């Protein structure tokens, strides 16, 4: 099915995902435009990772459908999507150079020169093995690889979780600096205060249901509060 909405990069309709008796996503409807940075925000266990994995083609849904740039999930959409999983998957024995080769082999849209430029800022020697790098450096390395692809949709699962504030800044700089206005970036996180300045739009996901989808500016203009404050109110325990 071809999408008639040329501005939408992602369309999700009546998407439901069950893990046995557990309902992880419940009847999710979603349309994301091109050229935006969008926050997928919700507490732990709200279904953020499940949603990203379904869009990335790593999990199948129980019912409903997903279109990426008008195409159903499959081989074609994988080439449009650059996915950063919650945990890094680069094997311990690989050197930095090996990882670059690996991405060059795998992805036609990988921009090797851009990746090298970003890595030079990290001061990581090309012959270092993954196991010799700190956890934070490995996460930065993984993000550099993912952001060096010229994809249409970036799915970043908790890119700033578990790293120090300076690393967080490096990561957000990398995201802003690589952003081109044709691509959409969907970032899942529960660290709202850190990302809200870079978000055009946000989604609140609560127990598998999208409870709010709006622009960040609109929240400030109409409610006179930051997204972080709104999140604390909506998800108060």
């Amino acid at each position: 099915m071809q999408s008639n909405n040329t501005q939408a990069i992602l369309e999700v309709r009546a998407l439901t995902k069950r893990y046995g008796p557990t309902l992880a996503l419940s009847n999710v409807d979603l349309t994301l435009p091109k050229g935006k940075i969008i926050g997928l925000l919700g507490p732990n266990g709200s279904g953020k990772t499940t949603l990203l994995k379904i869009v990335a083609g790593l999990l199948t849904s129980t019912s409903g459908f997903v279109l990426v740039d008008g195409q159903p999930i499959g081989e074609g959409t994988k080439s449009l999507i650059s996915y950063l999983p919650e945990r890094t998957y680069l094997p311990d024995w690989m050197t930095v150079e090996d990882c670059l080769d690996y991405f060059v082999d795998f992805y036609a849209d990988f921009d090797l020169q851009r990746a090298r430029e970003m890595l030079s800022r990290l001061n990581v020697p090309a012959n270092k093995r993954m196991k010799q790098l700190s956890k934070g450096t490995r996460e930065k390395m993984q993000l550099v690889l993912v952001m060096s692809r010229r994809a249409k949709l970036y799915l970043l699962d908790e890119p700033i979780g578990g790293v120090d504030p300076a690393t967080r800044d490096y990561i957000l700089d990398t995201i802003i600096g690589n952003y081109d206005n044709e691509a959409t970036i969907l970032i899942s996180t529960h660290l709202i205060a850190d990302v809200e300045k870079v978000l055009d739009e946000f989604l609140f996901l609560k127990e598998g249901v999208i409870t709010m989808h709006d622009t960040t500016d609109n929240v400030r203009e109409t409610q006179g509060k930051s997204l972080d404050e709104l999140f604390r109110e909506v998800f108060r325990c």
Partner: protein
Amino acid sequence: MAWQFTSNRSIYSQIVDEIELRILNGTYEMGMRLPSVRDLALLAAVNPNTMQRALSELEEMGLVTTQRNTGRTVTTDEAAVSRARDAKADLLVETFLSQMKMLGLSRGEVLERLARGENKEGEHAIQ
């Protein structure tokens, strides 16, 4: 260093204020070429679309102009800058006077305090 923003106003309007201030006080000189949207977004640590929106507003205000090929520059129109400075100053005076009124000071007392305050300018100012 990323720019600081308060939580109760939209980020783009705070960026407009910040860049306007830099133009009015000469940090960004008239006719100066502004950094690209991406570089400004990185400087402020904000979304490039937000920076774009702020710059469009500054264009509408006549403080920034876009030329083909050369990108964005600060206006060379002195009248536009001086109009913006007047508007900003009027707004600050209005805010100040209403706060003084809330404190219960009469106009005469306010003027007297202003005259006295000139000697110890900014010593204990609230930033």
